């Protein structure tokens, strides 16, 4: 399988401006050099705790803000595009191909717009707008594809339930005929009974529209169910990456083990705990060595001074730890 998006050594540092409560500006290291290759047609899952950099990575991918350093490449046809803010025309074309779907459909849909406008507005300003008659026709098609009815075009978001609104968000992303969908916690705000409907819909849409999906969620069971490969982020760094079945069966990084061990399962045992006591990663003062220092049960002197590189320990299974593999 060929790569569709390749991220190399991507970093994002935010500046916290000095203000009433802080006398000096500080820097927040949200992403510290992440390299990931997304393959054409796969679902790539990203997991990690809050502050791990999942959303920063996804948002930097579509350039909702510029990245600090590193490279984002996109492969389409025989072309290779490097994505930066400096080429707005290329960026616009890239953004029709790579679509972002947000967590909370009620805050990401304009309550004053009817569905027809929500769906068509983005495409109207796109590089290759098909003209307004064609636009409404397309809107109708995608709305049916996500399981809503044609006459829902004239209704407003408030007339729909949470699950239906998430379908509208998906339709809005699909209308530009994208190749990649970034799903950032798309089922987190939904009830269990609705969550399953949306997950099944995503699987169906993926096949129907030949999509590549980047799937972000905090529920590890859901991510494992949906993804072909999974990347585990902590403190803005990729700690482990493996095909889903392998990661589920044998997580190798101590952080992945901690994360998976803490997950409630239906077999009713209380999850393991104890080694989580240490101080979590502080993005304003990132450690020189491994970001997991302070919480890691395997920690040694070397971890505090040398940041472990990602190494391939088995085919397709990469781990960033001095003491694994």
């Amino acid at each position, binding site marked *: 399988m060929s790569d569709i998006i390749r991220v190399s050594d991507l970093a994002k540092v935010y500046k916290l401006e000095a203000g009433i409560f802080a006398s000096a500006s500080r820097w927040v290291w949200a992403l510290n050099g992440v390299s990931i290759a997304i393959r054409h047609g796969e*679902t790539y899952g990203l997991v990690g*705790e*809050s502050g791990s950099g999942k959303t920063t990575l996804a948002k930097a991918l579509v350039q909702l803000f510029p990245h600090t350093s590193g490279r984002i490449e996109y492969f389409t046809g025989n072309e290779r595009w490097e994505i930066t803010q400096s080429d707005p025309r290329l960026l616009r074309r890239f953004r029709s191909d790579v679509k972002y779907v947000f967590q909370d459909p009620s805050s990401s849909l304009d309550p004053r717009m009817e569905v027809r406008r929500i769906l068509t507005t983005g495409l109207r300003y796109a590089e290759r707008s098909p003209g307004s008659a064609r636009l409404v026709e397309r809107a109708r098609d995608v709305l049916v594809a996500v399981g809503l009815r044609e006459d829902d075009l004239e209704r407003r978001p408030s007339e729909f*339930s949470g*699950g239906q609104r998430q379908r509208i968000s998906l339709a809005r992303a699909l209308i530009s005929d994208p190749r990649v969908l970034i799903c950032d916690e798309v089922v987190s705000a939904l*009830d*269990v*009974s*609705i*969550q*399953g*409907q949306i*997950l*099944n819909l995503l*699987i169906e849409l993926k096949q129907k529209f030949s999509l590549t999906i980047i799937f972000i969620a*905090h529920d*590890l*069971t*859901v991510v*494992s*169910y*949906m993804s*072909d490969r999974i990347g585990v982020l902590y403190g803005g760094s990729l700690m482990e990456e493996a095909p*889903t*079945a392998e990661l*589920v*069966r044998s997580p190798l990084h101590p952080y992945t083990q*901690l*994360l998976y*061990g*803490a*997950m*409630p*399962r*239906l077999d*009713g*045992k*209380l*999850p*393991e*705990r104890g080694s*989580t006591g240490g101080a*979590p990663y502080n993005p304003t003062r990132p450690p020189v060595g491994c970001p997991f220092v302070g919480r890691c049960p395997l920690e040694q002197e070397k971890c505090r001074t040398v940041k472990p590189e990602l190494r391939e320990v088995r085919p397709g299974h990469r781990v960033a730890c001095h003491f694994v593999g």
Partner: protein
Amino acid sequence: MADEREGTTTAVSETVLDVRGLTVSFPTGGGMLRAVRGVDFALRRGECLGIVGESGSGKSVSALAALGLLGRDAHIDGSVFLDGRDARSLAPAQLRALRGTFASMIFQEPSRSFDPIYSIGRTFQETLRVKDPTLSRAECQATAVRLLSEVHIPRAEERLKNFPHQFSGGMLQRIMIALALANDPDLLIADEPTTALDVTIQAEIVGLLDELRSRRGLSLLFISHNLALVGQIADRILVMYAGLVLEEGPAGIVLSQPRSPYTRALLDALPSWGSHYGKERLRTISGSVPDPTRHEPGCPFAPRCPLVAERCSAAIPPLVRDEDQAAGAGPRAGAYRCILPGVKT
């Protein structure tokens, strides 16, 4: 685990919270919203009862109504016994006094439960002085340090000077629990206490609650939408839907051999650990939760139920308790609400 507890509960086996026939409605522009439509549950000393349900199922409203914490616009009916006393017949001041010495509650988002301009020490002082206004600052501090150590906050004395924004979400939830212990309660109600937290922190908080329950003999009412999480801490589970209890029973049994088609469908809608979309699709529940202002007769789950029959929409099915069916099943066995013959065990 259940066996251990059996031994200790024989001495004090009284019921801490007993709710019978509870109904709660709110007047709205679109008619009466019936949030809770006749709910019974009992919580024994040292026991953990889990209430699970989707949003709008009435799980939080039931707990708030039980403690008398709903606003005046709520129409409440039924009986609530707190520590054996009829809470609904008490005057507001008496109920407040009973609550103050007997029950505590923690909520979903710890960061929103604290006043950002008060230090943690000051928050403790204010809470402790509600009960005893004569407490000195030093006494308050000593009690606060003891409570914070009980929930494993390191360097408790120093941290009393800190403000809420200086703590992580998990730490704040621990402090919230410490505050809830200030009145030395017998009953602790936890309403989605870990929903805003990461899984690793969630595991710590649930572990802490379980530890406090066994150390202090606390009774715990644990409300959550997460079936797996409730299964880990609760002895018994109540499954609510559209303001009704659809199933009740020992946690392990409800989650492994559910009898209500709703519980079954909820469990099926969750991906199981290690399953993959390439191999199996999720069996989803079609449709959505019924509108609580529309009063349809019949089983509330009927429009979405995979097993639905014509008579399901005639009347709300009765809650069938095991003791109604077989003598010797005991009052601690389960109950479910379904009239379909194939569903019965």
